[in-house]
């Protein structure tokens, strides 16, 4: 990795002492992280480490128990969930979260429309402006779902739904992408496609990637954070983290074999 790039790019999203408790359970405890522009920041950790919780806080889905989230210099932990997306923080979900009865294209169009406006136009037909559908189609194409464009989302396979999930985030054209296990349930080819896509995207956006597919994480991440039981374990370049014995013990397991 090129360390210079990391230093040059600016911090776009930042957490300060972020905590989330569920009753007595500290799902997230005092996490302070900086996410840089044009950089892919991987987050890994054992199951239940609090990775999804972190993303849920970053996108406004949960309210933090304490701590702050700063986006482009402004604290945003008090704003409404939808406002996060309006600030350009888009996210995909670990558990597939789409519009099952709408076509793939329609799924993406909803996302595009948020940005394009006109949502309070009661009278004009939604199909009137092709630009919107063009962008939506583009997003589908990027994730390799073009051929499924007019298929109803409930009728495509699980893996394809995972692809759609990503297409929808792309369609909002966010500046920060929060991806929760985008590759889970996807086949090799599709995973490879997404990896290529992310490689491209990280030239422009800030991406936070939670993923258990180590090949992908190691290949993509500019920076890697490891979390264990709600605590921050370490953050650094891929190589450094991979060789950290604590990480091996808590997460990767000994030996070279990665399952």
């Amino acid at each position, binding site marked *: 990795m090129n360390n210079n790039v990391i230093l040059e790019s600016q911090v776009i999203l930042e957490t300060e002492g972020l905590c989330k408790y569920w009753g007595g359970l500290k799902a997230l405890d005092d996490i302070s992280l900086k996410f840089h522009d044009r950089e892919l920041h991987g987050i890994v950790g054992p199951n*239940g480490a609090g990775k999804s919780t972190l993303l849920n806080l970053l996108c406004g889905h949960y309210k933090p128990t304490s701590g702050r989230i700063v986006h482009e210099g402004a604290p945003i932990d008090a704003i409404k969930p939808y406002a996060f997306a309006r600030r350009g923080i888009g996210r995909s979900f670990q558990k597939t979260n789409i519009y099952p009865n709408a076509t793939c294209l329609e799924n993406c169009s909803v996302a595009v429309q948020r940005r394009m406006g006109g949502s309070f136009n009661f009278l004009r037909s939604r199909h009137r402006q092709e630009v919107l559908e063009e962008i939506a189609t583009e997003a589908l194409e990027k994730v390799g779902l073009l051929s499924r464009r007019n298929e109803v989302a409930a009728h495509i396979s*699980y893996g394809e739904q995972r692809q759609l999930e990503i297409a929808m985030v792309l369609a909002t054209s966010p500046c920060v992408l929060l991806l929760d296990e985008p590759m889970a349930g*996807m*086949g*090799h080819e599709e995973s490879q496609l997404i990896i290529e896509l992310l490689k491209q995207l990280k030239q422009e956006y800030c991406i936070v990637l939670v993923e*258990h597919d180590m090949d992908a994480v190691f290949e993509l991440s500019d920076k890697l954070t490891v979390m264990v039981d709600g605590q921050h374990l370490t953050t650094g370049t891929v190589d450094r983290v991979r060789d950290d014995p604590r990480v091996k013990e808590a997460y990767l397991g000994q030996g070279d074999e990665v399952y």
Partner: protein
Amino acid sequence: MNKLLEVKSLHTLYGESHVLHGVGFDVEPGQAVSLMGRNGMGKTTTLKSILGLVQPRSGNVLFNGEEITQLPTWQRMRRDIAYVPEGRGMFHNLSVKEHLQMAARPNKRGEHNWDYDRVLETFPRLQERLGNLGTQLSGGEQQMLAIGRALVTNPDLLILDEATEGLAPLIRKEIWEVIRTIKASGISTIIVDKNIKVLKELCDKHIVLVKGQVVFSDSSEGLSARLDEVESYLGV
């Protein structure tokens, strides 16, 4: 040798769309079988057809030589089949503990090899979350619970769809260990997963689906021999 499960030329349709085109294979007692294929090739549909969650248009499913194609799902499962669905199928209103308690039962021979305690031993993570509701678990914890819930029914045939999805590497290893153990204890498994390396080593037989048709069905040796071909089917 007699077969545990025989699947004969299944044709399954969703409404108008024809998804399975004569899928057939069989599983012998104690065998682990992998089911591979790219997204949308019909793996899940095959499993669902076996379980009666979708009704195939034609074709037969035999379990222990007995025709079960027309039986309702619950009666098939009573013949000691267990299923871990993709997406995990958590109950939003049951706690972890209740998930395991409600499912636990001895198998037909009255065996109790897997019980509540053993599952918690295998997945200590769940031990700490006993009071959480099913949907208040992290993704990986849900996967553990889904597997645990299947195991406490003490099945003869365990069907895992996307077996290790969302699991951290260490736990994934753990799961493979578990499958190895249950295989050793004579339980058969059908596994859908994308980790071809592990499957090759773990399973006795491999089936690859392309567009609802079996394009490859062979032992691990056969798989090693034709690895390139299979990898092209899988898009590796």
